[in-house]
């Protein structure tokens, strides 16, 4: 395993965090990650994150579910074994709506959840490196990766950016 060094700084308020990020970005320092106890709005734009493709995945899966749902029912009732139920036509479309709808939702939901988990690298027992356990409590943490031993420079930048505490992590 290669050795990497990170420098972290934390804030106690999301407003300060945003200010801190602004200041770091002004100094052209690349931010590896920001960790917060709750979602801070606007961070994705500030950090130039790519727009999530989850909605698209959800839509495609939903459409697939709908097609499977309707197609399967239609196949069963017209091809596999057409049966006369109470005088209804074999292809009684209104009857197929509920199941089609439910399968649409089900497929989309699975796609979304698994899409989220996979794209985020999360999952049962997924490996994690936690630099500061207080992040999930009340700390807003900025992580910077030190390349070529510039950790002290980064530490200073963080202090400058108003971080309440700065720490170095070697892994």
């Amino acid at each position: 395993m290669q050795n990497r060094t990170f420098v972290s700084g934390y804030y106690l308020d999301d407003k300060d965090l945003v200010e801190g990020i602004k200041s770091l970005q002004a100094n052209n320092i690349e931010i590896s990650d920001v960790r917060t106890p709750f979602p801070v709005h606007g961070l994705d734009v500030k950090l130039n994150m790519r727009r999530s493709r989850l909605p698209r995945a959800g839509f495609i899966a939903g459409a697939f579910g709908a097609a499977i749902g309707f197609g399967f029912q239609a196949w069963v009732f017209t091809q596999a074994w057409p049966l006369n139920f109470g005088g209804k036509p074999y292809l009684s479309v209104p009857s197929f709506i509920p199941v089609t709808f439910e399968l649409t939702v089900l497929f989309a939901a699975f796609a979304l959840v698994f899409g989220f988990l996979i794209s985020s690298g999360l999952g049962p027992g997924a490996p994690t490196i936690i630099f500061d356990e207080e992040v999930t409590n009340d700390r807003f943490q900025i992580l910077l990766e030190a390349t070529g031993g510039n950790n002290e420079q980064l530490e200073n930048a963080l202090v400058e950016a108003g971080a309440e505490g700065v720490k170095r992590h070697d892994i």
Partner: protein
Amino acid sequence: MKEYWRSLEDLLPAEETEQEKKTSMLLSDDTESSKNSRRDFLKYFGFSIASAAVLAGCERPVKKAIPLLIQPEEVKPGTANYYASTFYDGAEMIPILVKVRDGRPIKIEGNDLCKMTGGAASARVQASLLNLYDESRPAAPSLDGKSIAWDEVDSKLKETLENWDANKEFVILTPSILSPSTQKLFSDFKAKYPFVVFETFDAFSYSAIREAYKASFGKAIIPLYRFDQAKLVVGFNADFLGTWLQPTAFSRQYAAARKLTEGQKDMLRHVQFESIMTLTGSNADERVPMPAADEAYYLAGLYAELAKKSGISSTSVNAPESIAKIANELFQAKGKSLVVSGTNDVAIQTLVVEINKLLQNTSKTILVDKPINLYQGNDKAYAELLTRMEDNKVGAVLFWETNPLYHAPLNGKTEEAIKNVPVRIAVQSQATETAKLCNYILPAPHFLERWDDKALVAGAYSLTQPAIRPIFKTRTPQENLMAWAGFEGSYYDLIKLYWKENIYNSSLAKGRHFETFWKVSLRDGLVIDEKVAPQAINYTGTNVNQILKKNNAAISSNDLELVLYQNVPIGDGTLANNPWLQELPEAVSRVCWDNYVSVAPAFAALRGWTQGDVIAVNGIELPVLVQPGQARNTLAIAVGYGRKNAGRVATDLGKNVYPFVQIINGARSYTLPKVEAVATGKTYELAATQSHHSMEGRALVRETTIAEYLKNPASGNEMHAKVEKLHTTLYHEHEYKGHHWGMVIDLNSCTGCNACVVACSAENNVPVVGRNEVRRSHEMHWLRLDRYYSGDSDNPEVVRQPVMCQHCDNAPCENVCPVAATNHSSEGINQMAYNRCIGTRYCNNNCPYKVRRFNWYDYTGADSIPNNRVDVAGMTLDLKRMVLNPDVTVRAKGVIEKCSFCVQRIQDRKLNAKKDGRQLRDGEIKTACQQTCPADAITFGDMNDPNSKVSKLLKDARQYGLLEELHTLPSVVYLSKVRNKDKNKTLS
């Protein structure tokens, strides 16, 4: 035409042990016969899914198939044979066909060659099959409670007979013997042993009719009635459609005379005067409640009125208004009317005979020259016999299928008399009370296990032939006598010889040898000798005025009277140990598994009684049933219950009221003029299959009067046209390219006798659930007879409607089954795949007709979970399982079932047609209910065939579908009911 098989005659002479073995061999090929092989693996693995899968399978029993060593030509495994035979239980006699599958009788049907019944059979005929498989039948001969071999019986009794004290009588007490061969045997036996005395004892007495004819015509006869020849029938306490004399034949005549199909416009009118609401009264066009005590007065009034009109002088009687009115009608219908009474009272019966004579009905609707041989018993003679027995004049008594201790205890007199006889022999096919008092119990075979012949009227002969080898160590009663008298041969030989010598004649032979004639007779089951001369009989007259004087005023008062009656399922109680009959709802009250005290609504209100309150009537405690239409001060209790030694089902079921019966004026009287009834404070829940009795103004049973009908055949059925006009659908309707089965039920014909219900149960393996389950509305009958009252509760009108699965083309049940267990067949049948059903009961909820039945418990033993069977009637015993129809699946617990239009019969007849390479004939397929219906109310056939009877009936203006406004498109169609009454001529 059905194929009638010649019988097992060829196999007949064989040793007993071998017989048993052969029977068992015939049975063992069938999976139904043993409970071990009745396992359904789908169910089994379903329950133990987890463990079974992992453990790589569970044990599957190896099924053995044992062929017959030598296969008789006519016995084909898996194919049913029909044998013609005759039913007779001491009450009714009906020619039947016995359906035998793999050596065991599984269904009884009426013999359609018989003109009297036209192939119909009553509920009791249908159910009598189950008595064959009754495990409580005496299984082997016994002496003083110890088993004994037949040889020993013979040697002992032979010794007794040969060393007889000539001063004493050896009495053989038989029911009315219809068999000419047996009578021949009796006379031969008497010739050998002159001290033998044959006496006749009927379980339910009709001796007053014979006495009345003796008085008026000089001969103690019961004439042959022809309801179909009458235009007006007036009944007095006579339940001739339910229990009186020959109800099956009468129902058929009655319904035929009231049909309005096939262009018939004329309809028999029926007026009933009665104290209790009988099945017959509930079918009457008009019905007048009448205190039982006043019946003689009413009839006397009728006689006096008619005499006045005929210009005959007689004592005048101030008749009630309704009688005066009906007298007018009767007088107009002279020679085409019929007055009958069901009361066993000589004075009443004499009046009836004289009234009919006045109306010139004799030899038109009453054939006195063709008397019937039923009910030959004479109550006076019976009373005298008891006296002789008490006076030590009788040395031995043999009860030949009679049970006087139960049917006529006469204040313990019968018991004392029997105990006074040193040798007491019971020759009986069923457990009886009388047998308990006997030294010898000699088991007799069930009528399906023995040979016999019958002659209902002179010249009409029918044969009884065995359809199965005796299940127990039984011997035909006639063969007992033959053995004791040392006669050679078997009873079969005797019958054949008798037929050869006495019945076979040139007109019947039609050029055939006797052997051929005999075989043809066996195949057909009956022979009618048209040339037998009518019996000469002349009117001698009797002193009517004396009776009129005695009954010239009403005697009913505020005293409570009690009427004892036979109800339709149980009758006199002889066949009471029969789960099918006990579970059959009574035709009027729709209560089963008990008897009860019927009380008029007004009287119940007066005393503050409601249904289920237990009251004591002269000390007998029974629950109350409020019966609309009953005379106000009349109480009524059914006989036939409270058996003490009848077997597992009937013993101690209900209360026995035969002890109330006394011999009055030489006849057993079933009416008590004064009884005490007090509330006990207890309650008892009756097992009623219907709890709401009003139609709530819904157009379920549609009816009209004959006058309206003649003006407009669609009267009363106007709604049908309205609904038809609205007939529209978004979807295209499914096409039925081949057959489209349909059924038409003529509500004008259906009398509500319930024979169809038992026929259906027998055909379709419908389980018996028992009293407690019926109380919880868990009854399983696929077919029920809804009964509604309308109008005044003191004298309501009654309508009935047989309801089974309506096989809707737009069936609401089919849409809602999640697993597709019920759907529509290509022939329009609403099919139900039991093995697919998971039991959500959604279909039943969504059935507007509520005809689906759910297996609440394991009633049949088909469930794979052990120790959970609910089978109070022993229907899952191996012996009783022999009655199961192997072509119909036995349903498991948790499964919905319902009427299938007897699809197994449809399949069978279709296959026959295919094998013959011909089209199906209309009427070839008969459902079980249709087949047995005495009123011919049910028609089944192909609606796609424009020439079928069903298609023709569908064009009748009276035609409508039940709840047709729901657009379920039922394949069962009803024809509306027409009452023969007119606003201008009404009794009340």
